[in-house]
């Protein structure tokens, strides 16, 4: 086939040999390079944000290493296998969510963790992957675009875990999982008219959502709408974050020189608000550089999705990529004051482990989908 001859034509050059080697271990070079660049950049920022704490830096490096190993491992699993596992994984995820609610221990005022004796596991993380897998599998069974009942059941398949996660309560993850379902539906070709209708209905139902919110969630929304309302309480995060970014200017105050971050005015600076540290110390230039890497990763993900061999691969690859984007946008939107404060870390940069593994696993899936193509064809 055409692309095969293209591959062999390049196989004489050393680069192609390397690419071929990477293909054999099912890794996508452009994506891998971008991910390594982003994680390296993230470590630099984290080093500053943790006030040059070698312990935290090392811990994060170990987590990144584990996450990369997970990615490599997942990349080895053929998409057909993933497809077969979609339903069981989803089922296990739901059971664990119920388990968390039933006997979950208290962590940060919310029940999110499942204590499995040796390791503590956050089932909601699993659903970030399990939901797009489930929906991709379910929707790929029938020709696209989906119609009628199929849309309804797809919505139900999304809503059940979302509601369970929201009960924990973990608004951030619930939002991401919900968006994962919506994204897969969108990619499956949900009619524009219906999308518009759902949008209007959603806006109409917003007050109802308000009614079901926890007081702390309501406070976050109020604070988002008017942060200066409560400058010492909930608005403090947003105000300090905006000050950090704004005072960074075009070129920033210099790496390790951020006053907002190093003098502890910026809360959660190594986790959810690490983007503000980039803005303060490295300025607009540093942020644009980081966003360029993100944009490249997303573009590459969407490209991989369009190149996927079957509908399941396409929907899953596209879904995971766009969930990654939602992740990014919710975090940056929050830090820059465009969106309300929702506890979502900056993907691959924020300090912390659980989401790191989930995200890298989803990139493993992307790589699997991309690199198993030819094998499937042959």
């Amino acid at each position: 086939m055409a692309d095969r001859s293209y591959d062999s034509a390049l196989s004489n050059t050393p680069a192609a040999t390397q690419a071929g080697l990477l293909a054999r271990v099912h890794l996508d070079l452009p994506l891998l390079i971008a991910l390594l660049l982003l994680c390296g950049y993230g470590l630099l920022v984290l080093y500053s944000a943790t006030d040059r704490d070698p312990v935290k830096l090392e811990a994060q490096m170990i987590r990144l290493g584990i996450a990369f190993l997970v990615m490599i491992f997942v990349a080895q699993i053929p998409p057909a296998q993933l497809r077969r596992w979609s339903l069981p994984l989803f089922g296990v995820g739901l059971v664990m969510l119920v388990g968390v609610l039933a006997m979950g221990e208290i962590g940060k005022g919310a029940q999110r963790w499942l204590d499995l004796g040796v390791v503590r596991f956050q089932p909601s993380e699993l659903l970030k992957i399990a939901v797009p897998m489930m929906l991709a599998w379910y929707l790929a069974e029938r020709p696209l675009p989906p119609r009628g009942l199929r849309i309804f059941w797809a919505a139900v398949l999304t809503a059940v875990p979302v509601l369970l996660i929201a009960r924990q309560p973990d608004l951030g993850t619930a939002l991401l999982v919900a968006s994962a379902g919506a994204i897969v539906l969108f990619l499956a070709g949900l009619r524009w008219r219906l999308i518009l209708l759902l949008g209007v209905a959603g806006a109409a139902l917003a007050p109802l959502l308000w009614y079901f919110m926890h007081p702390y969630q309501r406070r976050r929304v109020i604070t988002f709408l008017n942060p200066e309302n409560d400058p010492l309480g909930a608005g403090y995060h947003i105000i300090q974050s905006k000050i950090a970014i704004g005072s960074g200017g075009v070129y920033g105050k210099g790496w390790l020189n951020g006053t907002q971050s190093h003098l502890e005015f910026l809360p959660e600076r190594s986790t959810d608000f690490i983007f503000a540290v980039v803005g303060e110390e490295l300025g607009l230039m540093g942020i644009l550089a980081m966003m360029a890497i993100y944009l490249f990763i997303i573009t590459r993900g969407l490209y991989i999705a369009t190149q996927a061999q079957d509908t399941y691969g396409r929907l899953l690859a596209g879904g995971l990529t766009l969930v990654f984007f939602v992740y990014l946008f919710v975090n940056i939107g929050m830090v820059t004051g465009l969106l309300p404060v929702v506890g979502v870390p900056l993907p691959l940069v924020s300090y912390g482990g659980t989401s790191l593994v989930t995200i890298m696993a989803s990139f493993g899936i992307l790589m699997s989908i991309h690199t198993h193509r030819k094998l499937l064809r042959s």
Partner: protein
Amino acid sequence: MVEAIFKDHSGESRLFTERALAAGVLVLASMLLVAARLVQLQIENHDHFSTLSQDNRVRLEPLPPTRGLIYDAAGVLLADNFPSFSLEITLEKVDDLDATLAELRSLVDIGEKDLKRFARMRTQRRRFEGVPIRINLSQAEVARLSVNGHRFPGVDIHAELLRSYPLGEDTAHVLSYVGRINEEELERIDASDYAGTNYIGKGGVEKAYEDILHGSVGYQQVEVNARGQVLRVLESKPAEAGKDLKLFLDVRLQQDAAAALGDHRGAVVAIDPRTGGVLALVSRPSFDPNLFVEGIGAADYKALRESPDKPLFNRAIRGQYPPGSTVKPFVALGGLETGTTSLTDSKWCPGFYQLPGNTHKYRCWKRGGHGSVALEKAIVQSCDVYFYRLAHDMGIDRLHNFLTGFGFGQRTGIDVAGELGGLLPSRQWKRRVRNQPWFPGETLITGIGQGSFLATPMQLAAATAALAARGRYIRPRVVRATEVPGLEAEREVPAVVRQLSLAPRNIDDVIASMEKVVQSAAGTAKRIRTSAYRIAGKTGTAQVFTLGQKERYRESQVPEHMRDHALFLAFAPVEDPRIAVAVIMENGGHGGSTAAPVARQVMDAYLLRETPAEPPPVAADGR
């Protein structure tokens, strides 16, 4: 349906690519939105956020100046600063105030009074400003708290300089005291000058020289973190310490004068006629000014305020008494100067005086009368009738004018805050205040220092000093010089001098008469006669209440607080006056018998003082 059997692969692929493209456009649009937001934050509003960031990080801290010290003429320290430690709580840094307080109470004594002050002061504090919960910690308490400091975030030991007055009561009415700035003062002062300073002069020298003693505040810019901890000093402008004050006041004399008055209510003012410098300014009873520095307790304050002896009342500069006969030498001098009388011009004293066409008898203190009286006898024996006549002949206008020259009826302008000006009656005053015409009878009683006439001991002493200095009226002053601490150079406070144009002969005549008040056997102050030096003086007795026409004053029949005030003023040595004294003893009876001995003791103490013996020179070889 068709869908069950047929999957359009290329169609699905096309649909997906279309959707992926749409998603890509959405991603790009979102990224652009974020970029636009970043441009807004980092370029458009960069200056604004830079300022906010700077405000976050940089705090301006005042560096309060050290208050100037006050020394007496011999260099004795009268007002000192000593370090005091207080325990302060910064509310922003404390999570559970009640728990913190409970724990602190196990380490230091925190009483109801402390809690009340804390509750009052926390309402007036600024953000991140400590509020004192305990003041004046002992060394042991400081040590205990320091050891346990880590257990109390937001609780700090604050060191500040507190004022102390080593001589306490002896200087209370001269220096007064400093106390916490109150709201009224806060309106008057420039608050930025007092940033970091809690105290201000409340009266006396402390208030009159507030600007000089206070110094000027310094500032430092410090970098702080979000917890308000100071990380480093970015810039600083040191405070300029207040200047020290060197007084004319002679504390030994001050103490001797207080001792001479004893427990008696009264005042002594001694002035050096050559400089106008106040050597002693005593008002008895006195109080301990140190009680006020840290805020006096309600019970103590009530006791001081409600004491019938009024220890807080500064009789020396605020006590307004009828000067009585002590004014006679000045009236006599006025008579000579205006040509109304002469040294030899004698009048007849039958024991009373009547205005032409009036039956009212203005009585002389001597009921039988003095007979023929000329100026000298009139002063020596203090004949009232002579001065009724003289005052009548001079008329109130000339009398008022002349006495004004000696500082009666107006504040002397002494550099001790709170002075009152007494009252020298005049036609204008009567018209203005009482809306009545002047009656001739009022001229008579003004001539003997009674009626509406009021003078403070300070005014009397200043007038006496001016007489001793032969008409050189120097505005009395307590502070001789200011000195920048650490620098040797003093800056003398200039004297404000007014030379009265008086004929030397007239002055000589009046002074000679005053000398006879003490020296002659008929003198009203003959009991303080001495051969050690020559004294010129004048007794006075100020009526506290007015007798009816037929009544007689009998001291033993009058309750103590209604008895006459005893006055005496004097200067010595006559040939070269070095000290002028005014003494008033409230309800002390006759000036010659009670006030004059006090004045004598004061003059003795000053003029006959043994200069401290020089320590014997130590031999060079140590033997």
